[in-house]
């Protein structure tokens, strides 16, 4: 008897679902977060307390960085103005609480997308805006050109981080002898490495590049090509508001796809007359892309015009011409040999 009831109930649920999808058709319903954001007039964005090139403030108090640009893109899409973002600096420990307690609505704070975070603690990860990974820096004078030359070295590392664990795993799996030299603060690690207390310095590659500029002679050091861990970083939203998560996910997607299709902040308007339907869709000249997110037709055009495509954001904040000086590496477009691959905006 109980079973039949259960079956009946699931059947009913399926009908209800089909019915719901049928009536909703294409147009998505604006979620609660979207409504609140529009009412308040700004996007509540959680950033770091300062990670060079990812989220940092300049001397006039404006936030810049590729993590910051994701939030600005969301603001451009939702509110029509990339400047309408309120940034909340968060420590690593409190970032998820801030998101869950609705202190912020988007967390863009170089957060690694892992199974336990995605599945376990009520978060939704919305794509990857930077593929990071742990690497090693050595002096050029050491003659080491690959991680296979790291047998018997002393390694400077931050204590109590996944970086330290990754390093142990790496050396143990290779069967290399090594001597960890641990410190509490990143600045201490860099100072120790600079003064020659250890042969190699290991942290995420984005960090290595930024820290290298602090060394007394940056040109005397190289970052080894291998990456020993995967750290896909991306924007995070609360579970439970699909519409809002979709907006964040597709705002990031638009930036990445715009670069792939050659649309930049300066040529976006001119691209409206392009022959390529993919381009026309992205600049709002064709299709109904906004309706699926409960946004207007020009949402993606505004992102590209106000924030720029992913490549522009990258070059501006962490690219080779900036002090951070990161080459594209895995963060190049898939057509250029990287792994950056935006899902089609259609």
């Amino acid at each position: 008897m109980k079973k039949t009831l259960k079956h009946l109930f699931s059947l009913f649920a399926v009908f209800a679902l089909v019915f719901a999808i049928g009536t909703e058709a294409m147009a998505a319903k604006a979620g609660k977060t979207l409504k609140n954001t529009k009412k308040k007039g700004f996007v509540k964005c959680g950033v770091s307390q300062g990670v060079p090139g990812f989220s940092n403030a300049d001397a006039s108090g404006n936030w810049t960085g590729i993590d910051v640009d994701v939030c600005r893109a969301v603001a451009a899409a939702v509110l029509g103005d990339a400047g309408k973002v309120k940034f909340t600096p968060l420590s690593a420990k409190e970032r998820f609480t801030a998101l869950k307690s609705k202190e912020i609505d988007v967390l863009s704070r170089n957060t690694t997308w892992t199974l336990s975070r995605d599945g376990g603690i009520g978060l939704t990860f919305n794509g990857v805006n930077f593929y990071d990974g742990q690497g090693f820096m050595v002096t050029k004078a050491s003659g080491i050109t690959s991680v296979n030359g790291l047998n018997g070295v002393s390694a400077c590392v931050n204590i109590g981080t996944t970086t330290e664990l990754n390093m142990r795993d790496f050396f143990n799996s290779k069967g290399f002898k090594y001597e960890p030299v641990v410190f509490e603060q990143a600045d201490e690690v860099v100072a120790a490495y600079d003064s020659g207390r250890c042969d190699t310095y290991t942290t995420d590659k984005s960090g290595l590049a930024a820290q290298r500029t602090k060394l007394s002679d940056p040109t005397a050091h190289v970052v080894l090509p291998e990456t020993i861990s995967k750290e896909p970083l991306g924007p995070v939203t609360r579970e439970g508001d699909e519409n809002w998560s979709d907006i964040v996910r597709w705002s990031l997607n638009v930036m990445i796809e715009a670069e792939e299709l050659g649309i930049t902040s300066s040529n976006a308007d001119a691209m409206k007359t392009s022959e390529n339907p993919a381009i026309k869709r992205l600049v709002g000249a064709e299709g109904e892309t906004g309706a699926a997110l409960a946004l207007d037709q020009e949402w993606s055009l505004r992102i590209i015009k106000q924030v720029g495509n992913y490549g522009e954001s990258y070059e501006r904040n962490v690219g080779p011409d900036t002090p951070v000086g990161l080459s594209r590496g895995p963060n190049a477009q898939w057509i250029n040999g990287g792994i950056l691959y935006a899902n089609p905006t259609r």
Partner: protein
Amino acid sequence: MININKIYQWSRTNLFSNWYNSLLSLIIVFAFIKFIPPLLNWLFFDATFRGSSKAECYGDGACWIFIKVWFQKLIYGLYPENQVWRINLAFLILIFSVITSIFVKPTIRRYIIIFLIFVFPFLAIWLIGGFAIDIESLEIYIPILEEVDTRVWGGLSLTFIIAIFAMLFCFPIGIILALGRRSELPAIKYSSIVFIEFWRGVPLITVLFMASVMFPLFLPGDTNVDKLMRCVIGITLFEAAYMAEVVRGGLQALPRGQYDAAKSLGMGYWQMNALIILPQALKIVIPGIANTFIALFKDTPLILVVGLLEFLGMIKLAGANPDWLGFAVEGYVFAATVYWIFCFSMSRYSQRLEIRFSTERK
């Protein structure tokens, strides 16, 4: 005319009186010669003061351009620049009323102290945080001062805001707890003991984590208590427990005769404490109170762990700007200097109070 002979005599008796004193003197002189000139070179002679970008820093000395360029941000945090006058005004009012209170008659001073404790905190919040007449039912919204979220408060001004609020509130709470702990009513006595021992038993960093990470999860739905407020309340309660024990030390130092004398004059509990006991007890513990306040001031950088960018946090944020990487040492030296100046002033001020309130015969 310097008397060479006298110097010789003096050093003979004070520096080289026997072999181990001579050795220690020589080591110290050597250390001075070895370390002081390079330090001065780094701090001043080789340092760069003029300029506006990292590229203008040359030589091996410190690059004070970093501090110069970021100075305003280090003081005011990310507070909107055109609104900074509000912070200035709030602190001017504070400084003005403190200074006048030193020079006026005690009768007027009483009013200034009442103003400082009961009016100023709210006036300051109103000035710095902004204010609007907001009657939702009538849809009236008149912004009088532009609202500025606590999220952009920062720098040295935030350090002061936290320290001043925590000091203002932890002091009275501490006195009440101290009296409560010595109360003869068991309910009051034991709840005071439990409170004090609980807050003294946990590290401040745990309190801050609870306030910023756990507390919001217990709140229902959309309610959100401001993060800064949560932290200030946490610090206040934490320091109040310490203050209570300091004050209790003073209460216990008073001879029983003082209590008996007050009672024999027909005074009630509150009268006795307010007029006889506390004035004497607090005078005794001025060094302890100053100690707690200085510790509190130096504890404020801990709020860094909850993402509030007070003075030290702003220095770190400034150092994370790609154009200004690699100036951590300058930043920390500057921070240390500033903290030392304020803590030393507090210490001197407390010594002045000790002398002023001293009723002992000399």
